[in-house]
């Protein structure tokens, strides 16, 4: 079974600064996908960014980028130029290559301070 660990329950960052959220996972699979989901206060969970394990290039979506270290089984999320709207719970998640189900980490609560 896969496990996903987020070691930072809470983090804070000043507006306009950069913050990195950590995620590690454990799997024996070689083909899989990794995701970061964002859950704003009282709002629906949305996908922020995804990474295919077979791709060496780190995924980037505007101010969001990942540092994917396959050998170390590490998948961190970097948020640049943090905005107040980035305040949310962030979940790291894993999906097997041929599967449909997600395994989530425990989440990191991020507070962006003005």
């Amino acid at each position, binding site marked *: 079974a896969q496990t996903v660990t*987020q070691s930072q329950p809470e983090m804070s960052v000043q507006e306009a600064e950069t913050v990195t959220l950590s995620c590690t996972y454990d799997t024996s699979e070689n083909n899989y996908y990794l995701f970061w*989901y964002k859950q704003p206060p009282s709002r*629906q969970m949305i*996908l922020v960014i995804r990474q295919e394990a077979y791709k060496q290039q780190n995924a980037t979506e505007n101010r969001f980028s990942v540092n994917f270290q396959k050998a170390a089984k590490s998948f961190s999320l970097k948020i640049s130029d943090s905005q107040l709207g980035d305040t949310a719970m962030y979940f790291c998640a894993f*999906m097997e290559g*041929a599967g*449909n*189900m997600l395994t*989530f980490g425990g*989440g990191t609560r991020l507070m962006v301070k003005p």
Partner: protein
Amino acid sequence: DVKVTQSSRYLVKRTGEKVFLECVQDMDHENMFWYRQDPGLGLRLIYFSYDVKMKEKGDIPEGYSVSREKKERFSLILESASTNQTSMYLCASSCSREGRSYNEQFFGPGTRLTVL
């Protein structure tokens, strides 16, 4: 845009009551999921359905059952609610994997259930 809706945002029930949580998606997705979200534990899968009348147990199915009579609707049932089922419940849906490298899950707003 995919829309996943849940019947209630907040629900308060008493121990022993039968509870129905409803989820509806409007994108003709084959897959539907029920998760439970608890602080520090993230989201844990309760049940998964990949087609009408089909279901698979997730990681924590004990105390729950599900029903999928129509493709767009997936219900979570607590036959006899207990206080340890107080939690946030999230529904999600996704399309099938056929012809796709991966399938993104789209989430509903959640139902915060309190069992007294």
